[in-house]
């Protein structure tokens, strides 16, 4: 347990955040194809190598979330990615969920996340390969009638079960209840749903005996829906709503809140994160690190050039 707390603290160290580069083969393929590159294992490897060997990344990145294939890959000159990252003081993380599936008896478009079956065996393999933390993404849809209690409770419970298994295997779980930005809902509605969903997630973590000091939370910021009237809000407003909501439901024992950037542009996500930290300092009594776990917001929009460059 002490090890888990140490790893969680390292991942949420001041000034550092997570690079989410755990896109599945299909998702990363779409991105590569847009850049005119074929979706082969070697191209995917080279793409990740580009990031993991960036000099100085260790100043700002505490951990990298990888897809299974990537965890086992190496640089062109034969050094394991896990080792290359470790040299920079960066910890290796692994996405362990197996994607979304429609929630039986759920509302229109609601999902649960697959992957609990066989999770323990998989985690032990990942630990042997050098992973120190894991990630599991649940998604919650918002509308006038969603989310249903079933979706909230099912996803919260599955997140807690995932977290418990990870801890038993020696991995710090990043717990990601992503409330989707799709929809026309207001920021206020989003805040209410955030409290409901994150509150239920924390309650599930308590119920399953997850050690809070050894896990991290990866929520969405409290923003209006992508189709809401008026468009994105000023960072100060995002910050106030986000900090207020999380202070109501996240106990201090969780060392870090690593925001996802899902649906925001790079500039938006960074500006909002900055404002969140300023708000936290101004409001006081925000005991957790408030940092990032960004994917698209950190990654270059287009991958260019041949693998060798």
């Amino acid at each position, binding site marked *: 347990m002490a090890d888990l707390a140490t790893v969680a603290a390292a991942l949420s160290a001041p000034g550092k955040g997570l690079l989410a580069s755990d896109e599945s083969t299909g998702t990363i393929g779409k991105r590569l194809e847009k850049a005119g590159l074929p979706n082969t294992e070697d191209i995917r490897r080279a793409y990740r190598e580009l990031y993991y060997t960036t000099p100085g990344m260790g100043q700002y990145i505490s951990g990298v979330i990888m897809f299974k294939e990537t965890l086992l890959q190496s640089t062109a000159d034969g050094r394991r990615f896990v080792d290359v990252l470790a040299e920079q003081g960066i910890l290796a993380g692994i996405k362990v969920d197996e994607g979304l599936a429609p929630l039986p*008896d*759920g*509302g229109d478009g609601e999902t649960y996340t697959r992957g609990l079956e066989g999770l323990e065996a998989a985690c032990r393999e990942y630990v042997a390969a050098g992973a120190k933390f894991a990630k599991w993404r649940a998604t919650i849809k918002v509308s*006038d*009638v*969603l*989310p*249903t*209690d*079933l979706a909230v409770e099912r996803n919260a419970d599955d997140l807690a079960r995932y977290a418990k298994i990870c801890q038993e295997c020696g991995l710090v779980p990043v717990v990601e209840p992503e409330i989707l930005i799709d929809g026309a809902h207001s920021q*206020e*509605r989003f*805040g*209410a*749903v955030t*409290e*409901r969903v994150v*509150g239920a997630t924390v*309650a599930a973590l*308590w*119920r399953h005996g997850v050690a*809070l*000091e050894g896990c991290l939370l990866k929520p969405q910021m409290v923003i209006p829906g992508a189709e809401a009237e008026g468009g994105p809000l000023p960072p100060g407003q995002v910050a106030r709503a986000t900090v*207020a*909501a999380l*202070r*109501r*439901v*996240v*106990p*201090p*024992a969780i060392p870090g809140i690593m925001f996802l950037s899902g649906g925001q542009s790079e500039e938006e996500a960074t500006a909002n994160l900055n404002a969140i930290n300023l708000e936290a300092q101004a409001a*006081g*009594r*925000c*005991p957790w690190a408030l940092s990032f776990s960004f994917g698209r917001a950190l990654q270059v929009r287009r991958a260019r050039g041949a693998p060798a460059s």
Partner: protein
Amino acid sequence: MQAKMQLRSQRAATVGRSRVQTKVVCRAFNSMESAHAEELKKTAAYIAQKGKGILASDESNATTGKRLESVGVENTEDNRRAWRELLYTAPGLGQYVSGAIMFEETLYQTARDGRQFVDILLSQGIYPGIKVDTGLQILPGDKGETTTQGLDNLADRCKAYRKQGARFAKWRAVVKIGEAGCPSTTAVLENAHGLARYAQICQENGLVPIVEPEVTLGPGDYSIEETAFWSERVYSHVMRLLNEYGVVLEGILLKPNMCLPGLDAPVATPKEVARATVRTMMRSIPPAVPGIHFLSGGMSEEEATLNLQALNEEAPNAPWALTFSYGRALQSSTLKTWRGQEANWAAAQDILVKLAKANSEASVGNFKGPHPVPGGGRILQALRTGGAGK
């Protein structure tokens, strides 16, 4: 504003079988509509301000009677009134105390000179509070576990108390540990639901609820870790239900127990108490709660101060105030000094204020000693059940 929506399965009508309907609960947590929300937050923040704590003087008439009788004072309404007058008119008390919890009778009483107690307290900058539960009741089963009564007519009572000048309320739930089978799930959930429902009603009627889930110090040699384990479970259910019931956390105060081993186990050092207690709070209490006001429940006056000091040393940057809501730990020596004698009035008040000062210092990690009443023993009382809070 609560918006409850129902989602019906499209197939139910055609298939004709009954289905549990999935429901949406969406609470507007920023409750801007609630007239009371902003006032509740301000009141809670005032009571939880740095360097101050709460004087718990809400003993029922029967319990107060036992105390008075122990120093040879008859249990009459006037003696109860005089005893509280001594407490509330203590000069300078308001430097260290931000709230005083009263029993119903006391809320309506006056000093000898005719001033209302509520006005005397307010003139000292002390907010009047009111105990609203009507006592413990034994739960079915053979473990002697309890639930707390008092929800019936609570809304109306809150309105009346607020009109009289009360700004906050208190409800004590007790969870027993240290015996095989305790606490049962029934007891934990029953008490948590009672607290959440009480808190919701208070807020709707303009009173800040002090939420008191007491994992009680009892016989047995159970360890401090066992107390911490059960305290975490109890508090987590309480916090979960407070959120589910739409209680505004910035507008409540928490009154929990410190984590102590059983009465038959060796007494824990202040550092041990602090470590276990802080860890438990960090795991269970979101930062939106402005103040955690520990009960003294049986600790000696000195123990209560030293433990509070250790708590603040352990967590100097805690997101909530770590302070006191002490009854016996402020009153015991005060009462023994007074003994019902007019000649001892000033000396008794002096002890009270010194005790309040010591705990005020401890609540910001500044208590250096010596303690005004060192070396006292544990001040235990039996759990009273039954009776409608008389």
